[in-house]
């Protein structure tokens, strides 16, 4: 089981709700992923529009826990206000906090992120911050009261997988009591497995499933990869080494010591 702010879940795969070819495929993919937590966003509604209501009824049919996000926010003020709107709209104090510094990389503004996280936690929010793999930033977020930290693997939607393995590994070692989630940049189930093998408690992804040729099958593949990676971590992986070490016993090798 994995814990998010004292709530226990069996699924370690958090999934986004955007970019699917159709609403039906979105629902089927989320079910195939086995995800119990889905991320949603909030946007302006045109007068008389029902876009939000239609989407919201699809999510409610899934019977999942909703993690609203502040995607697209560029300032602390925007992010904090959006979080408060999300709390009203979705009736949850959970917020996936994004404060974006740069349009091309969607790199988190880590300075604004720490400030926004501290403000929201004081207001009773349970914050899931989308951050970089920087240990200093992660420690500041924990000091501010975050019990979950979500570093990127690579830029959002880039599908590059884990680009800074050593830093992610260090975060796991240094923050053993924090729920760590790799959020963003995963492209293949093997990337998700790697994150879980490093001891990450969960992964959060969207594009890699939604943009697959068959999102439903890909969602199932990520589900298996996350389970495999987590099992491997619990089993204890051997350390890599520089030289060969025979797995077949040497003693008793036929013709051993025979002079050729």
């Amino acid at each position, binding site marked *: 089981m994995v814990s998010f702010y004292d709530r226990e879940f069996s699924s370690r795969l958090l999934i986004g709700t955007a970019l699917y070819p159709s609403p039906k495929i979105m629902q089927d993919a989320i079910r195939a992923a086995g995800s119990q937590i889905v991320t949603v966003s909030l946007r302006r*509604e045109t007068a008389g529009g029902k876009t939000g209501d239609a989407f919201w009824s699809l999510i409610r049919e899934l019977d999942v826990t909703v993690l609203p996000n502040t995607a697209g926010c560029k300032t602390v003020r925007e992010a904090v206000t959006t979080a408060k709107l999300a709390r*009203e*709209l979705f009736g949850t104090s959970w917020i996936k906090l994004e404060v974006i510094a740069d349009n091309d990389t969607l790199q988190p503004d880590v300075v604004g992120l720490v400030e926004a996280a501290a403000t929201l936690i004081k207001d009773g929010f349970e914050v899931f911050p989308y951050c970089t793999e920087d240990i200093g930033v992660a420690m500041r977020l924990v000091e501010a009261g975050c019990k979950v930290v979500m570093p990127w693997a690579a830029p959002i939607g880039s599908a590059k997988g884990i680009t800074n393995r050593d830093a992610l590994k260090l975060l796991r070692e240094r923050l053993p009591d924090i729920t760590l989630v790799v959020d963003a940049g995963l492209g293949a189930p093997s990337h998700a497995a790697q994150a879980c093998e490093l001891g990450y408690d969960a992964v959060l992804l969207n594009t890699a499933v*939604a943009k697959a040729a068959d999102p439903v099958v890909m969602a199932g593949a990520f589900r298996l990869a996350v389970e495999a990676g987590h099992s491997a971590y619990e089993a204890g992986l051997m350390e890599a080494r520089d030289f060969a070490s025979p797995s077949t016993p040497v003693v008793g090798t036929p013709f051993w010591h025979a002079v050729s």
Partner: protein
Amino acid sequence: MQVTVNGERREIAARTVDALLNELDYESTHVAIAVNFDVLPKSRWADTALRSGDEIEIITPRQGG
């Protein structure tokens, strides 16, 4: 009076948030509201007076990752 609704300037007759939602045909929609970056719980919509120049955000759920 003139206010800005979702980034668009418009002339409205409503004097409260509740009346504005009615006027703009949002009344049966699941929305959250901020006026000048102040998020208003539903319990305050009826008695929150709008002023000329207010910036109002009317927000609904949407796909996200």
